[in-house]
């Protein structure tokens, strides 16, 4: 009996240690990225770096302004939200309340599978299919904000659908029954009672989708044009924070490389902000 007590306590600490590993990991990542990028930002000057509009990293008098990329990330992410969120939420509502069981058996794994298709495949697809369409409709190279937004909008669908479907399903059936019992139609019961009740879960899903959109690289890189310029219209190309890193990382050295790691620092801060919003929403939900 003494032995089993020891085992209980010992394993408790093993579990606790396992739990602390993710904290250690995030601290390590945080440390190495900031160690690599923060000195550069301080040297360059926070304002020059964040608000500089010129990116000429290899010039003899190099310019490291990442405002165009910050703007690019924000615009493209916004675009992805405009495309992906309505479709994603409506699809999740479909999956939870409209989908015939026979279709569901096939649709559910299909949507899971969407998440496992490599980004490059999405990129190839968009370059071959979306870019020509976009070029015909909007002119220019076809590699622009709209194309990237549509692509990202599609890529965040599985994240949004998966999470909001499960939060819609988690709403007690009694709400739905009460509404139907008052003579409301199926559609009205779903849209006016069930979906609003799942609001916070859906918002979490959207925020996670936003995180995915900001972090996506290998696909967008092929279809955004990647010009480090603040765009003047929707048919202009943009460069995002992530593509800036991936584009040049392989060939950058010295201060150029530091500038790219510093870009990762800014990206990291963006993610932290999104996460803070996420936590805030979750905690409010807890208090409801």
């Amino acid at each position, binding site marked *: 009996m003494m032995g089993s007590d020891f085992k209980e306590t010992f394993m408790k600490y093993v579990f606790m240690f396992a739990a602390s590993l993710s904290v250690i990991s995030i601290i390590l990542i945080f440390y190495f990225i900031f160690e690599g990028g923060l000195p550069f930002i301080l040297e360059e000057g926070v304002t020059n770096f964040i608000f500089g509009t010129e*990116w*000429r*990293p*290899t*010039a*003899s*008098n190099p310019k490291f302004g990442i405002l165009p990329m910050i703007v690019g990330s924000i615009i493209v992410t916004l675009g992805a939200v405009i495309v992906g969120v309505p479709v994603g939420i409506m699809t999740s509502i479909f999956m939870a309340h409209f989908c015939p069981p026979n279709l569901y058996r096939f649709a559910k794994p299909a949507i899971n599978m969407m998440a496992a298709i490599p980004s490059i495949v999405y990129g190839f697809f968009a*370059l*071959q299919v979306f*870019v*020509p369409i976009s*070029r015909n409709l909007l*002119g*220019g*190279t*076809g*590699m622009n904000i709209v194309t990237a937004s549509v692509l990202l909008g599609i890529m965040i669908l599985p994240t949004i659908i998966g999470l909001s479907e499960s939060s819609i399903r988690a709403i007690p059936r009694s709400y739905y029954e009460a509404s139907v019992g008052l003579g409301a139609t199926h559609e009205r019961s779903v849209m006016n009672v069930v979906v609003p009740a799942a609001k916070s879960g859906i918002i979490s899903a959207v925020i996670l989708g936003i995180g995915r959109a900001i972090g996506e690289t290998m696909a967008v*890189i*092929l279809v955004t*044009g*990647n*010009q*480090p*310029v603040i765009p003047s219209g929707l048919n202009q*190309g943009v*460069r995002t924070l992530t593509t800036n890193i*991936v*584009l*040049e*990382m*392989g*060939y*950058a*050295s*010295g201060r*150029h*490389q530091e500038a790219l790691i510093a870009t990762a620092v800014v990206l990291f801060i963006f993610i932290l902000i999104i996460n803070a919003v996420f936590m805030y929403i979750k905690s409010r939900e807890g208090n409801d």
Partner: protein
Amino acid sequence: QEGAISVISREDGSGTRGAFVEIVGVVDENDDDMTTQSAAIQNSTNGVMQTVGQDAQAIGYISLGSLDDSVKAVTVDGVEATAENIASEDYPIARPFNVAWSGDLSEVAQDFLNFINSAEGQAVVVEEGYISVDEEAPAYEAAGVEGTVEVVGSTSVSPVMEKLAEEYQALNEGVTVNITANGSSAGMAAAQDGTADIGMASRALDEDEAGALEHQAIALDGIAVIVNNDNPATDLSLDAIRSIFLGEITEWEEAVK
């Protein structure tokens, strides 16, 4: 061809781009890259080819070794981009493929390097469509070494490096050559900190790198200027190409005179 030109360029730091802007003169008085900011950027040869291949208005440039019939290379001031014309310096746009290593090269790695610099090695280079750096290279003699060589760096260099490695391994059964293609800088960094035996770069080494590493060119690579197959233009002047990439000429009517 008429209408606005879609300029497709490579990313800042790319070896192809570095050589292209320098030789074509897409630079200012400080030799700074002045490629128009409205050029769309693709970060691989394939990206440029695919983009140009489907956009009738597009112009771009790629490594000559990668050229296929999905796009069309234009002649520059009437000269076609071929190995002979590059070797004879009639065709002006070319760049070196470099390898670099830190002082103490392992025995196997040294032997592999010897192979690259040998007649056999340079024959591979030529066969793959690149230009040899040494026409009179000595013949290679297998030294019977064994071990592993780690080669890291430029994506552009790696296809020819893979060929070289294959030929070499055929002659030296006991050697494995691992090639990782993730960029010239990654290669130089790996060579400096010992992660790699040999680094590959498709650009000139910068000051720090050149100070820390020994390096040499193993081949010359032509850079072809490409347009869409539907584009009737077959020849562009070096001046026109320069103006296009500087953003001074934006319409095809002005470019093709």
